[in-house]
């Protein structure tokens, strides 16, 4: 998944080339296809797929990507409006259905929306502006080049004449559609919308409780469905006695759904349909299902842990990266330190439980209302499953009550469509219970790391080794359970070797906010903190010594296009900034201590300092977090940006303090928020954020602020107590 973690700077022609995302289907190669269209109709002139202007001056901007709370619905139109020179007060934002031929690639993940759309959305706005200018120039009989725009108004400086966008829009729709690659863009110092703190566009509806989320979808004649699947991953349905459930008053239908062995699509189960979801869900208690669990019922977290330790004792199965001469470094070391680290499976638990509304019509066509981060793979998967051509499947993308990567996988869309296909003509809303959600996730993979470091007589870190133990599914290491060869400090320690061994599992694994980085940051930044302590130094000093004087890495081809490689200079920038913000060299107040963490992920550089103490009951308390981030030269919407960073920090603290998904008998043991205790308001520390603005195109903020806070916290606890947290979540007895 290293590719997704790398940037997408778009080529000037906005051509997005993308690779395959395992488990998620293929990405299209797309341009901005709707740009060739311009039309008038219904009073508003459509200048392209994204911009329509009504005679009264109201500008409707289409926001194409799924909104999961990352603020994209507000942010993408800001880019368009900036180059359009729109009066923001006259802008109306609408979401869009899934329509890749009209809007291009539509998804929410990998903090990719900002880098992938920074140029094309501005070009869409600039192209519409160009068409307005040309229409005004034609009417006035002047050259368009001399005209000026501001706040939805065109001015001819020579004559002083003005015309509003509303007045000229319908003739502008007849203008030639400009070449996107040539349309002039604003000088960035003239930005007036980019950089302005703008509140979430749907927030007024949300505070009034208006229906806006997927689960709020209501259709005439709609029925609700609950779906019972095997608690044990990999199990198949042998037989089911449905009679008692059918007899429950209010239950309208109960039937077996036959799935396959790919949990990302359709798994075996039993669907219960009723006029009220609570009735359907409660009737599940009456089902008698015989599951064939095969060998998988013997799997457990304890068993995985024992296997990992066994694998550590054996030679690694594979080498991820080897640089320099590691054996020589250890042979010549004055000191060798070793440590074993572990982190658990984690669930996503977005607040809105998984759900999807599907209508399969008598003619076989399908309409879906889907809270999905990846409508493309859901669309393709449902069409394939039902055996209908893609053009007969319509997907309406709804706002989502959180995503965090869970809704990149569209198992719930497959289930809803499979159930609706049995109830043709009746819209079916499938809703999962919270227990379903916790027990049927695509989990952040657990992992084990055995580290060794060689320190020479001068105290220099000369060698580093990591034997990583992870999982395979059907013999392959799932994408998000992999570790790449460039994980820091690879390339910055002269002799370094990462190896990997894997054990087979059927636990579904997927991308959780800052995939891989959310775990690798913890283990690497913690172990480097151990190295620094052994050197009599501290982590930021060690990091700076590894990074100073090193050149920026070359551009790389990744998901979505070319991206700049890792820049030591940018890393140093945020590390020094965080040290300064937290007054790093000054010790914390009595009874408190500070810890440091740095990580580069999703094109973003973040260094964070945590100040922590122990409560009277000797439990960790986080008081203050200082975060310095470099995500390029613009913070497009400071409101959304800060909200993402604050949320990421508390999310990471919550994971470290108390979250783990445990497997027993091949099934997840956790069921709801009592045993999966998400952080609550009392956990909230003081959070200070500063941006280091570097001369790079802006990149996303959904993820990169999370990874460093976890080791910053565990390193602070070491500074406070002398005890290393080598396993997450933090053991409550560790400091007793």
């Amino acid at each position, binding site marked *: 998944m290293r590719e997704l973690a790398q940037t997408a700077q778009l080529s000037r022609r906005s051509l997005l080339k993308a690779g395959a995302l395992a488990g998620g289907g293929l990405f299209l190669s797309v341009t901005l296809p709707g740009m060739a269209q311009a039309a008038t109709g219904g009073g508003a002139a459509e200048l392209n797929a994204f911009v329509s202007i009504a005679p009264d001056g109201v500008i409707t901007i289409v926001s194409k990507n799924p909104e*999961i*709370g990352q603020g994209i619905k507000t942010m993408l139109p800001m880019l368009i409006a900036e180059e359009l020179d729109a009066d923001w007060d006259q802008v109306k934002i609408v979401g869009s259905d899934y329509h890749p031929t009209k809007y291009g690639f539509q998804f929410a993940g990998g903090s990719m929306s900002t880098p992938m759309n920074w140029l094309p959305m501005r070009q869409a706005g600039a192209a519409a502006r160009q068409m307005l200018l040309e229409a005004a120039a034609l009417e006035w009989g002047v050259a368009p080049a001399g005209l000026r725009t501001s706040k939805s108004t065109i001015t001819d400086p020579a004559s002083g004449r003005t015309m509003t966008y509303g007045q000229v829009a319908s003739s502008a729709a007849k203008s030639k559609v400009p070449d996107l690659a040539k349309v002039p863009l604003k000088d960035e110092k003239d930005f007036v919308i980019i950089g302005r703190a703008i509140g979430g566009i749907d927030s007024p509806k949300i*505070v*009034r409780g208006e229906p806006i989320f997927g689960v709020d979808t209501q259709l005439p004649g709609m029925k609700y469905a609950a779906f019972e699947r095997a608690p044990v991953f990999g199990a198949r349905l042998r037989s089911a006695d449905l009679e008692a459930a059918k007899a429950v008053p209010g239950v309208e239908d109960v039937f077996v759904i036959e799935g396959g062995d790919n949990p990302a699509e359709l798994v075996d189960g039993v669907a219960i349909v009723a006029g009220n979801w609570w009735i359907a869900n409660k009737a599940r208690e009456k089902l008698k299902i015989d599951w064939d669990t095969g060998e998988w019922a013997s799997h457990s977290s304890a068993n995985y842990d024992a296997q990992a330790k066994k694998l550590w004792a054996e030679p690694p199965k594979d080498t991820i990266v080897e640089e320099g001469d590691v054996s020589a470094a250890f042979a010549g070391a004055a000191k060798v330190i070793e440590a074993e680290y572990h982190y658990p499976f984690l669930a996503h638990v977005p607040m809105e439980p998984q759900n999807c509304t599907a209508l399969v019509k008598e003619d076989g066509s399908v309409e879906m209302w889907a809270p999905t981060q990846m409508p493309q793979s859901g669309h393709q998967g449902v069409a394939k499953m039902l055996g209908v051509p893609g053009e007969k499947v319509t997907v309406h993308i709804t706002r*989502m*009550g959180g995503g965090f990567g869970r809704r990149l996988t569209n198992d719930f869309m497959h289930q809803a469509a499979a159930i609706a296909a049995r109830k043709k003509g009746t819209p079916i809303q499938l809703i999962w219970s*919270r227990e379903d959600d916790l027990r049927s996730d695509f989990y952040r993979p657990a992992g084990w790391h055995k580290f060794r470091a060689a320190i020479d007589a001068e105290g220099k870190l000369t060698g580093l080794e990591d034997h990583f133990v992870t999982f395979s599914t059907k013999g392959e290491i799932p994408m998000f359970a992999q570790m790449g060869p460039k994980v820091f400090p690879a390339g910055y320690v002269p002799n370094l070797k990462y190896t990997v061994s894997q054990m087979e599992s059927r636990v579904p694994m997927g991308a959780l906010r800052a995939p891989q980085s959310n775990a690798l940051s913890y283990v690497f930044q913690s172990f480097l903190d151990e190295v620094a302590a052994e050197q009599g130094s501290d982590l930021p000093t060690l990091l700076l010594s590894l990074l100073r004087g090193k050149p920026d890495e070359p551009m790389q081809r990744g998901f979505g296009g070319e991206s700049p490689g890792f820049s030591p200079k940018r890393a140093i920038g945020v590390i020094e900034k965080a040290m300064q913000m937290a007054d790093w060299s000054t010790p914390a107040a009595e009874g408190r201590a500070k810890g440091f963490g740095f990580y580069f992920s999703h094109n973003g550089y973040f260094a964070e300092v945590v100040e922590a103490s122990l409560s009277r009951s000797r439990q960790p308390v986080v008081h203050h977090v200082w975060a310095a981030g470099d995500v390029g030269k613009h913070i497009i919407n400071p409101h959304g940006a800060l*909200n993402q960073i*604050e949320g990421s920090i508390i999310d990471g603290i919550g994971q470290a303090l108390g979250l783990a998904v445990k497997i027993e008998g091949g099934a997840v043991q956790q069921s709801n928020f009592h045993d999966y205790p998400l952080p609550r*308001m009392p956990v909230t520390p003081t959070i200070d954020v500063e941006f280091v603005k570097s001369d790079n195109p802006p990149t996303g903020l959904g993820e990169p602020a999370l990874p460093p806070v976890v080791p910053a916290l565990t390193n602070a606890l070491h500074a406070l107590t002398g005890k290393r947290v080598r396993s997450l979540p933090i053991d409550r007895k560790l400091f007793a």
Partner: protein
Amino acid sequence: MPTKLTINGETRELDVPDDMPLLWALRGELGMVGTKFGCGVGLCGACTVHVDGVATRSCSTPVSSLAGKQVSTIESLAESPVGRALQQAWLDADVMQCGYCQAGQLMNATALLAKNPSPASDEITSAMAGNICRCACYKRIHAAIAEVAANGVSADA
């Protein structure tokens, strides 16, 4: 047996199983979907409504227990001055990310300020501790409540 109760000032008669939680009567029978399903067992607060002015988890409150009671939901929040002030504070502070839990947060915050118009900072924190925000917008939720508490609420707000 049908239960007669008042929801947002309107008398409603609900003929549902006695143990059906209010949440599912609101969402499934009355089409009032502003009140949200988060956990189903009273742990997250997303489904918070007011019953006779008291913040109550609608996912764990059977309809049959509400005969003769006054229920109010997020859909009627703007009818109270405190509710209106909080809605505005939420927008001013750009509190939310996904927004899914915010109906419950607002209902709980309104009940808090109705009872205690000027809570101390830690009183806000402990009063709101039952409401999970998965996006962790806690800093802003706290700030928005503190803002309303500091400025007071005028009847015509």
